[in-house]
């Protein structure tokens, strides 16, 4: 495992700028999740590290070694894509063994068997080892392709939405598994996802990308509790943070333009009245859609609330975020 750094990396595809002087360090042994909407540069970043794409400007280094001019095969990285790519004519076991059978490695068969069985157990596919890869369901195929990366011991694992095609239960299981595998093995992982639950629960660090630039890097808790901007604050949290004109409430600092309120930053039962527009019972909690001085906001209350649409509820901010005209956090 190794530290990976990108320094001033830019990449354009025709007129589209995918990365704009991106500088980021993925510490050795960390699980870094890149967050951002489509087009923020997440996947391009992965492809720069893997060597599948080459920067127009800037450098990528792995373990202190400059990667310029090295092919993907020379970089000692393992990749898992959203779309599984297995060898259809081979069995699950043969697919998992494949990376270890490379003539470069000369791994003894006993060691290979041990590793394959261990990984198959973790991914709950032990009973399918002798099936043809094509005889598996989509979820099983994706687990095999994750497994094929895990049997190796590369400098870094690069993963592009590897869980997005799996069903909810398996995704939840694998989240916990991936995190514990990573922590136990001390693996370095760079991971791309749209799913903020994956980011929050698995990452040691989250990198927030905006138009090819890194705008915040920190633990999930730091990004959630101390976001640097409206953009960063909007990446995490369900329901999304409410962004409203700061003037709606008293107590805003002088140059504040917007106030940011997560559900836990809205105190209920005190302050000014808001109208309940809609009540959504989600089981463990209830979402309230409120109208406050002509602005919509969403907050959360206990599961068995008596509130119904048409009722009013008093609200006021509690330790809110404030942002300036550029969306930068000022308090």
């Amino acid at each position: 495992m190794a530290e990976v750094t990108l320094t001033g990396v830019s990449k354009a595809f025709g007129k589209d700028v995918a990365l704009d002087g991106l500088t980021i360090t993925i510490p050795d042994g960390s699980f870094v999740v890149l967050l951002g909407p489509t087009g923020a540069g997440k996947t391009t970043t992965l492809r720069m590290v893997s060597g599948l794409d080459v920067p127009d400007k800037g450098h990528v280094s792995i373990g202190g070694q400059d990667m310029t001019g090295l092919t993907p095969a020379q970089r000692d990285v393992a990749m898992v894509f959203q779309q599984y790519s297995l060898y259809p004519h081979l069995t699950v076991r043969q697919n998992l063994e494949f990376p270890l059978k490379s003539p470069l490695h000369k791994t003894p068969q006993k060691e290979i068997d041990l590793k394959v069985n261990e990984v198959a157990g973790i991914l709950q596919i032990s009973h399918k080892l002798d099936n043809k890869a094509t005889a598996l369901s989509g979820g099983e195929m994706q687990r095999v392709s994750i497994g094929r990366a895990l049997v190796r011991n590369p400098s870094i694992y690069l993963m592009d939405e590897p869980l997005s095609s799996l069903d909810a239960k398996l995704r939840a299981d694998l989240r916990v598994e991936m995190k514990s595998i990573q922590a136990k093995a001390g693996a370095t992982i760079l991971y791309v996802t749209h799913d903020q639950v994956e980011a929050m629960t698995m990452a040691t660090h989250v990198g927030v990308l905006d138009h090819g630039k890194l705008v915040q890097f920190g633990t999930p808790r730091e990004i959630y509790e101390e976001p640097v901007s409206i953009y960063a604050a909007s990446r995490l949290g369900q329901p999304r943070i409410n962004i409203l004109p700061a003037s709606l409430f008293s107590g805003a600092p002088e140059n504040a333009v917007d106030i940011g309120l997560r559900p836990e930053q809205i105190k209920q039962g005190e302050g000014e009245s808001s109208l309940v527009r809609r009540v959504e019972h989600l089981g463990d909690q209830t979402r309230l859609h409120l109208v406050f001085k002509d602005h919509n906001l969403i907050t959360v209350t206990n599961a068995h609330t008596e509130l119904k649409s048409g009722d009013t509820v008093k609200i006021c901010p509690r330790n809110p975020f404030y942002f300036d005209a550029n969306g930068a956090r000022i308090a």
Partner: protein
Amino acid sequence: MAQIRIENVRKEFGAFTAVESSSFTVEDGEFFMLLGPSGCGKTTTLRMMAGLELPTSGEIYIDGEEVGQKPASQRDIAFVFQMFALYPHMNVGKNIGYPLISQGMSRADARKKVVEVARILGIENILNRRVGGLSGGDRQRVALGRAIVREPKAFFMDEPLGALDAEFREHMSEELRALHDRMGSTTVYVTHDQLEAMQMGDKIVVMDQGVVEQFGVPQEIYDWPATRFVAQFIGSPPMNFLDFHGAVDKGTSKVTLGETEFGMPPLLEGARGDLIFGVRPEHIRLDSVAPYKGRIVATEYLGTTQIVSLDTPNGTIKARIESHEKARVGDVTGMHFDPRTVTLFEAASGRALLSEANQGVLHHG
């Protein structure tokens, strides 16, 4: 505007039974969800309600009229699919107005209706645009416009948001629900996403392997699942299941697992043998002095709350607690289960035992 009643509807494809005899009622104006994993029969049920598939047996009533064997064209309904098919050579306005023109309405009248629908959907400024260059959201709005312009008795939607990414999906689901609230038309909606079902639905039918497991309002289904399947399919993380072997008597409000006694709502029936004690993650409190112990094996930070996984004598248990509460991996702690929220299940059938808390809300199909 329509009430839709399903009575003992059943569908076979050759030797395969897609939907076992099912009965439920969609009331006029309801936003009604058909929820279940893939292959559970929810889409087949929807297609039978819409007339795209004819039931093998049973009756379907729309506003009291039996329509089970009538094709879709005679049912005055509109169907919105996951993949919205628009006519690429027509502009937005013509796409929306097409169903009216093809019914023989005059161009002037159709135009008036199209503008009205476009206003409801907030797309009146793009009526003259070609559909080719539109964003995913606008394409979806156009497809919806084409469905609502005819003012059908009911809408049927088969995972209409399934192809959208998460952020946009949330936005569209709110928009769809708000649209329904303005128009008040009966809507039947198929999804495999339990959160979407809870969020949007007035009522939910939960299906598994062709069987209606439960139907009712979302919070009741969440609180008082009729079967083990419903309890694990709804909620994320799902309900915790502690398997045990024992006996409980009618009227009791205590159950013993291992050496620990737990409270629960008084039972209205007894049972013995392999049983399951069910408790939701947010109804577990970590309490160092509680006698039932577990070792913390993982914590997952979620912002407001965190999920704590604990190894216990009855398997892994997940608890949802506030994110500022201390929970360190490796620590051993006690657990307290809120007795008012517990459900017991028979292991073999997966059926919830009747108690004072869940009587009256367990509606099977």
